[in-house]
């Protein structure tokens, strides 16, 4: 197994049943997934359990990945949902809903929507390099640490209005459409 193969060449091998190819993907992403879970759970044991769930779920649904986004985006969606589900399980929520009901992790079936999504993803990644540090810090708190705007404001010792306006400014710079 060539461990240097890009994701999009490993995926067809995994779908054909090559577990060694999947091992390469797990090795490539495990520290990212673990860290995303750990930032919210603050427990290495729980974060590891989330990471396991993410990779097992991704393995079972890899055939549904259509390449409309980067593999890292797809697995991030699964990780986002698994960590929220675990967080709620730990809070003893008795719910008929899973986070994937609230935020679907399936890609669109429409070729045009897939293309649009891919383009917007590339644009966001490119423009993110231009964001100032103070805006990046707030976005990282909200997305990676799972903080609300109010919690981010308290931790950074900033007024809530400042946090909201920095997020809005960042989103404008990223050319995310807000038609309102």
């Amino acid at each position, binding site marked *: 197994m060539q461990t240097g193969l890009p994701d999009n060449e490993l995926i067809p091998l995994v779908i054909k049943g090559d577990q060694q190819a999947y091992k390469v993907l797990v090795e490539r992403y495990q*520290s990212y997934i673990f860290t995303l879970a750990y930032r919210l759970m603050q427990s290495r044991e729980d974060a*590891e359990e989330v990471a396991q769930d993410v990779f*097992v779920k991704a393995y079972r649904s890899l055939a549904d990945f259509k390449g409309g986004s980067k593999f890292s985006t797809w697995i991030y969606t699964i990780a986002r949902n698994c960590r929220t589900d675990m967080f709620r399980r730990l809070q003893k*929520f008795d719910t008929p809903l899973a986070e994937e*009901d609230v935020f679907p992790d399936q890609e669109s079936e429409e070729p045009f929507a897939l293309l649009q999504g891919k383009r917007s993803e590339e644009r966001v990644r490119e423009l993110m390099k231009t964001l100032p540090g103070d805006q990046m810090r707030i976005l990282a708190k909200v997305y990676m640490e799972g903080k609300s705007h109010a919690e981010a404001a308290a931790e950074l010792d900033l007024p809530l209005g400042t946090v909201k306006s920095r997020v809005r400014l960042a989103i404008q710079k*990223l050319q995310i459409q807000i038609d309102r």
Partner: protein
Amino acid sequence: MAKFHPELDLLTEHAAGNLPLAQAACVSVHLNYCEQCQRTSGQLHSLGAALFDQLHGEPVGESLLNSVLARLDDAVPLSYASTSQWSAGSTPAILQRLMSGDLTDLVWKKITSTLRISYLKTGDPNYEFALYHIKAGGRIPEHTHRGSEMTLVLEGGFSDADGSYHQGDFLLRQPSDVHAPTAVQSEDCICLAVLDAPLKFTGWKYRWMNPFLQLQAG
């Protein structure tokens, strides 16, 4: 097409997965009706993915990889049938799951001659998640809120002093807001309401009910 939408901070927290479950479900139902917010939400999600790519990954031991590889050969469990993608215009699947059927299967509690409420169980211990059925032309007595209230119009429409709201419209009311929604004359109105504290009636005729209004969370 919806004219009233969640604010950007709410959509951002929804995309990041940080909203309480009941509120997140309400925003998701709005997305079901609103292609514009679906698009924004997709882009906000891309932002999360881009931040994920920039994480400084912490070192992990070999146990994670070994545990994952050991589980790959497990029998596939009965899969959880998720409510799948948002599709504008169709009956919100997330509501169907919570209702275990459709609107005709619900148990409604009569509050006034024109208002009935059906409480749905999301499992969120801090928020009530309920459907309000207001008869055509019917009015919910004037009230304020002891907390926040998300409202989403599912069928028909209503108006209050601030505007008219129709299918897919989303409103977030704060404690200080006072209003008396009135359903459109032409058809009954069904709304989804998510509250973190009970309503408080302000008119003399219904104020006596306030001590008995309790949050039906869970």
